[in-house]
């Protein structure tokens, strides 16, 4: 599904990804680990088509995420580490997503409900005025409602309380079949029951890749 071949990305003199080659297949749940600055976020952003590689390539189901971003992003759900300060209210945000990505609003409401987030009473509140946990729950609900083949979570539970984390992992367990699940995390113990592969990055390189 995802194939990175000799991928190199530099920012000035800093090499963020150094000739990275890796593949992610269906039914794989991967914990992507490494110290700050190891290249995890750069790898994810390259998969999402945000970065133009200096050399090498990324292919998602055979498509280049930069040149064919619409086709590629139809199959990817992404939750960033920190919810961005989106000024749209929840209704407008759902409108953007439901029209732009053809996601059923009711499905977002359903998963939000499963995450114990009451959308109805917050529908006209700006997204950025919600609490950190509420924002994260909303983004998780959207990611699940999108029904993508590839789900990328960058520290998704950072703002969640223990109960919400349990709800989240329960939902993921129910929805992980036939997908690639990519977690960027510093806490392996939290996702160890979910993942079947662990990649460790350092200084822009994949230094260990274990499947279990």
């Amino acid at each position, binding site marked *: 599904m995802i194939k990175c071949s000799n991928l190199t990305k530099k920012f000035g003199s800093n090499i963020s990804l150094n000739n990275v080659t890796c593949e992610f297949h269906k039914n794989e749940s991967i914990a992507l680990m490494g110290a700050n600055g190891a290249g995890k976020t750069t790898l994810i*952003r390259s998969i*999402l*088509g*945000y*970065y*133009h590689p200096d050399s090498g390539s990324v292919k998602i189901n055979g498509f280049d995420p930069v040149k064919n*971003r*619409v*086709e*590629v*992003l*139809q199959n*990817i*759900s*992404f939750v*960033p580490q*920190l*919810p*961005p*300060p*989106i*000024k*749209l209210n929840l209704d*407008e945000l759902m*409108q*953007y*997503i439901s*029209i*732009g*990505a053809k996601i059923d609003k009711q499905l977002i409401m359903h998963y939000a409900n499963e995450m114990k987030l009451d959308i109805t009473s917050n529908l006209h509140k700006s997204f950025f005025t919600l609490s950190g946990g509420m924002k994260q729950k909303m*983004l998780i609900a959207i990611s699940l409602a999108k029904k993508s083949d590839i789900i990328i979570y960058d520290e998704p539970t950072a703002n969640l309380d223990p109960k919400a984390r349990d709800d989240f992992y329960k939902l993921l367990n129910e929805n992980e079949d036939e997908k690639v699940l990519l977690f960027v995390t510093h806490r392996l113990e939290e996702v160890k029951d979910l993942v079947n592969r662990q990649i460790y990055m350092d200084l822009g390189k994949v230094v260990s890749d274990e499947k279990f």
Partner: protein
Amino acid sequence: MKNLYLIAYLDLKESIRAKWFIVYSFVFGGLIALFFIAGVTESQVMGFSGLSRLLLMYIQITIVILPIFILITTVRSISGDRDSHVLEYMLSFPISLKQYYWGKVLGRFITVYIPVLFAMIIAIAYGSFKGANIPWGIFFLYTGLLFSMSSAFLGIAFFISSFVKSSEIALGIAFFIWIFLLSFIDIALISLMMQERVNEGLVIFIALINPMEIFRVAAISLFDPELTVMGPVAFYILDLMSQGVFVFISIIYPLMLGLLFAFLGYKIFEKKDLV
């Protein structure tokens, strides 16, 4: 196209709720109100009276404040979203960069143009209520000139926004451009002429490629077709073309300039790393 309109619509809704939009609308609406209170419509200065005088004053003030308002509110449109990681999330959905960028341009254009236009409509409505003669020709031409100047600065702002990584730098560049173009309305041009190192034709050319200056000259020419208030400069302009052609160019040129900058901005947005 559906996504483009959606992005324009949501940007418009988001902008209308923003504090800057309230201040922006208040400034232009307030200006017109101030003119009414000051009795501009009843005064007669330099031969212009009533609504024509009011519109002329409005335009003169607009030359200075509209560009800076458009620049500072728009220049952070993409760079600000990039800064705050909003762009990273919003572009993780299958929306093409073309739809996202031009949707933002369209939404922001409507946002910046509506209060300016609305202020003019208020002036016309008030004038009509007072039983004044409505200078419809001037009204429509000013509306066109404002449309075209708004396009020019919106295009420039999107161009800056597309390549600048931080919104602070974007603001700095916007201020510099505003001061630079403003100084080339008068001060810098006069000093160039006084030094007598450059040909007068070149000085006039520099003046007329400045969208702020061409807007000003065109606005004056609607009241003073001979451009007598401008002195010898009028000879150069009216020697080159008729007043009608000049006004037409004054509308088309800033519009094209804005579209060109917006297009260049789009090309940069498309070719550069997004976050």
